[in-house]
Structures are given as structure tokens and as C-alpha cells.
């Protein structure tokens, strides 16, 4: 079972990212669970969401305490929130960060595990004209944790947003996914 914890700020789409990945997993014939951590959220406050993906039916109904992957949508959370907590030595931290994975590791204060960075804000601005980082971060995640293929996720983006957004914006989302997938850097 792959367990993912998403960190973002209220309004940035961490919950949408968790659900996008879950729906893509369904399309790929896998079992999944996606849920936000509800508290006194308001726009801009730190929020978390969780995704589980497995080939077997998922029976656990509890929070994800020891994620395999932590995904950080907002660089301003780095150093403010204990992002690496619960990550094992094999754990992966993937952040939207304008710098090298080594710098990221230092800022997070992480010892073990693997660290990846991608400048999702820049990618989002260049492709979509808005700092919507959830879709590029899902793209980068597909590179570092291979639960699904990038094409399976792109299919889901087209299905999920096809009716809601105009075609050019759907294409921009897909472009953001692909670029983040290609540009994400590990140590």
C-alpha cells in the first residue's frame, strides 16, 4: 500500500490533488482512499490531506501516521511545519521548492529518506498563469513514486476537468503535469 500525506494551505487544492490521484487510481483499476484532515481551516492556513493506493481492498479507516511519501504544495510551509514527521528511512519528501534537493533537505531538517524538489510555482505560472501547484505536484509525484503512470493521471485530469474548464486550461494543466514530471530533481 502506498500512503501519501499532502501539505498545502487552505484553498491551494491539496484536497483536490488527493482526490485527483485517487480517481486516477480508480481509472487504473486500483483501490484507493482519499480524505482531508478537517480542522478549523480557513484560506491560507496549513492543511493536510491523505491518499492511500493499493492493489488490495483498503480496509483501514484512520489517519496516515507513517506516510511513504510527503508532498508539499506550498514552499512557505518549509521550515514552519514538521514535514518529515512519520517518514521512515525509505520515505520520500517531495516539495514545491525553488532550489536543489540538498538545500531542501537542510531547510526541512531531514536526515534519512529521499528528497526531491521541483519549482511547481514557476511551472504553474508559465503554463496556467496562476500559482495552482496541485496538478504539477501530482505530475512530479508520478516520477518519484510509481503508483500510476503519468498517462493514467493525464487521462484522469482530462476526465475530471474536461467538463468544468475550457479546453485550453485543461491542456495547460496537462502541460504543467508533464513539465513537473520531467523537471523534478532528486539528490
Amino acid at each position, binding site marked *: 500500500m502506498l500512503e501519501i500525506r499532502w501539505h498545502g494551505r487552505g484553498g491551494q487544492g491539496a484536497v483536490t490533488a488527493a482526490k485527483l490521484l485517487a480517481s486516477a487510481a*480508480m481509472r487504473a483499476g486500483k483501490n484507493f482512499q482519499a480524505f482531508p484532515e*478537517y480542522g478549523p481551516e480557513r484560506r491560507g492556513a496549513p492543511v493536510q490531506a491523505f491518499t492511500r493506493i493499493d492493489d488490495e481492498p483498503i*480496509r483501514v479507516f484512520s489517519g496516515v501516521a507513517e506516510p511513504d511519501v510527503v508532498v508539499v504544495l506550498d514552499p512557505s510551509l518549509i521550515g514552519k511545519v514538521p514535514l518529515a514527521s512519520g517518514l521512515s528511512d525509505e520515505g520520500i519528501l517531495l516539495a514545491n521548492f525553488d532550489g536543489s534537493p540538498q538545500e531542501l533537505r537542510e531547510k526541512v531538517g531531514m536526515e534519512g529518506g529521499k528528497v526531491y524538489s521541483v519549482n511547481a510555482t514557476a511551472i504553474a505560472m508559465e503554463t496556467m498563469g496562476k500559482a495552482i501547484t496541485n496538478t504539477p505536484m501530482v505530475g512530479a509525484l508520478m516520477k518519484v513514486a510509481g503508483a500510476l503512470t503519468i498517462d493514467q493521471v493525464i487521462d484522469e485530469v482530462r476526465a475530471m476537468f474536461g467538463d468544468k474548464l475550457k479546453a485550453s486550461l485543461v491542456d495547460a494543466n496537462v502541460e504543467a503535469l508533464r513539465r513537473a514530471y520531467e523537471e523534478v530533481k532528486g539528490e
Partner: protein
Amino acid sequence: MGKLIAATGNQAVAQAMRQIDPHVVAAYPITPQTDVVEEFAAFVADGVVATEFVPVESEHSSMSTVIGASAAGVRAMTATSSQGLALMWEMLYIAAGLRLPIVMPVANRALSAPINIHGDQSDTMGARDSGWIQLYCKNQQEAYDTLIQAIRIAEHDSVRLPVMVCYDGFIVSHSLAGMELLEDDQVKAFIGKHKALHPLLDTKNPVTYGPLALFDYYFEFRRQLVEGMARAANVIEEVAEEYARLSGRYYGRYEKYNMDDAEIGVLVLGSAASTAEVVVDELRAQGVKAGLLRLRSFRPFPKAELARELSHLKALCVLDRADSPGALGGPVGVEVRSALLESAKRPAVINGIFGLGGRDTTVDLITTVYHRLMKIVDTGTVDEPLFYLGVRGGNNNGRELEAAIPQARATR
């Protein structure tokens, strides 16, 4: 095979309501049930249901409205949670006392104070004596399936009682999972056409609902309600079997998991039972004869069946996601103990209160419960007949607390 969709518990329930297409829905949105009302209102606005939707100003009014509609002779539904259910209180008894087949999903949530929006079963457990049938679901799929079944159970000629379909707030209501929808016409055929029984609006055959019945007849009415509740036991099973033929999914009044040869067992309601299955698998892999019984029908309570299914155990823990301060234990714990008293052979029974206010109930936490039972079997003594699982202070031990709040430990 129906259609596979990704849905939260609330969306699953709203889909069932869309397919049921009741004549009247009167509802007030309350966390964590809100999405049910929101999605259903969208179905009404989009014209995909023919329902008369009454946006009321409170839950007392929503229950009053569906009581009126049901007595008038139509299929009527509402939905609620927590404080909303509490505000409906006096009307709950009237719905049951008038023998109105109202069906109501409840996203279980803690009651204030302190204010808490998260999942526990205090709300519906408090309504256990209201005369409503209560079915507790373990996941999104079951919440959907049970809501459809509830129409048949409530409207059955030999039952005629309202039904609460309970599912854990946030844990199920806001968690997205894959589930199967039946086809709309399958649901329509399964629930059948609503038959009005003694409708209030049939002016050629005038009837009265809820007249005065003092010491002369009140007692007989209440006694008849009890008999309707008793007959619901068979109806729940019949409907479950018929539904299984349609969907391939069977849920009776309770569900056993590795129980028949078990030496220790846990009895619990709702989503925690799903998590507990994982614990049972782990313990079985270690050679521990662990079992699990999930109670689905709390009202009617399957007392004879539970006595039969549990009596062979050496030790049993009943887990309650609600408390009854000052009582012998939680509502389920007290009742299961009573059910076992008539068995010649019975296990040592302990009762744990857990998960209040949405406190996370993890695999590790439930594992500590089985460890308690293993210790009871080893030592032959029960130290704590009633305990609070993973709570600060009181009788918890540190390991349980660690297991109980990993997120608090991890991120705060």
C-alpha cells in the same frame, strides 16, 4: 454489474437518495452531513429527481415536515448529524410512535460541549430508545446499500417504523473511495412503488394520527411498536438476502470475521470494524486466535444471536464509540453483557470507550485491545472491566496514547 464511481460517504448517500427519488425531502444542512443536502438539492434543481424539497429553518422542522408528509401518504426522507439530531429529539419519538416509515441517513458526530464536528456515535446512541430502527455501516458502499434497503425495511407491512442509517462522520462521510452504484431502474424495482397506508389526505376514509391515548391505550400502542421492532429482525435479513441477489453484497444484522474458532474477540460498530479486520489478519498471522464481530443492527438488537456467536470466546471486548457517564459502560457494552448473561458458558467481558470526538482509531490502537484480551486469557483475571482507549489521564497507558494520536504526535 453497476457503475463504479469514486464517492465520499455523503456522496454515496446522496446517490442512493437520488435513485430512491422520495416524494418529499425536508432537510437542514449540518456538518458532517452537509454534502448530502447540498448534492441532493442540486439533483432537485437539475430536475433529475421529482422530489418536493423543503428547505427548513431547523432540524425540528425538518423532522416535523417529513412526519407530516409521511402521514399524508408519501415517501419522505431527511438527513442529519449530531446537534441536528438532538434538536429533532421530540419529533423522533413522534415519527416512531405514529409508525411512519421515514428513512434518515445520519453522519455520526460527537455532541457538544466542547464543540466538536468529528465522528463518534454519541448522537444516535442517545436516540436508541426512540423506537427507530438503527443500522450502522462500515464504509461508503454499505451506507449506500443500506439506505436503499432501509426503504424496504421501514415500509414493510409488518414493521412500519422509521430507520436511521448511521455512518461515521468524516471518517466515512468525507472519505473518498471506490464504490458500485446499482442502475437506477434496479433500485426503483427493488424499493417498489410506495404504498400509502391509511393516508391522512384520503378524505373518503378519514383517519386520525397521534390522538390522545392516556392510561387507557398509550401502553398498548407502545407495546405494538415493540412488536414491530421485533419483527424487523427477520425483515432486515430477508431484505439483505434479496439485496445480495441483486448486488452480490450481503449485510445481515451482524457480520463475523474469523469468529467461529476465535478465542478472543472484539465487538464494534461502524468503520472501526473495518480497521479491526486488518488487526485480526495480523494477529492470525502470528497464530493468535482473534476474531471480530461487527454489529450492524443495534435496533433491533440481536440478543439471542449474539449470545450464541460470542459464548465460545474466552475473552471479549465490546468497543463503544459513545459513553454513558455514570453507567456500567457504553451503551453497546452494557447490552452485550446482558445478552450474554443467559448463556451457561460466556467469556470474560471488558468494555472500551474509544474514538470520542473523532479521536483516530488506528491499527496499533485496536491491537492494544487484543493484547488486553490475550492478557486476560493468560492470567485469568480482569483488571479493568471498563476502560478508555487512548485517552490522556485516567486509566490509559502510554503505548495506547501513542497509538491513538499519531497525527498529534507527528505534526503538532
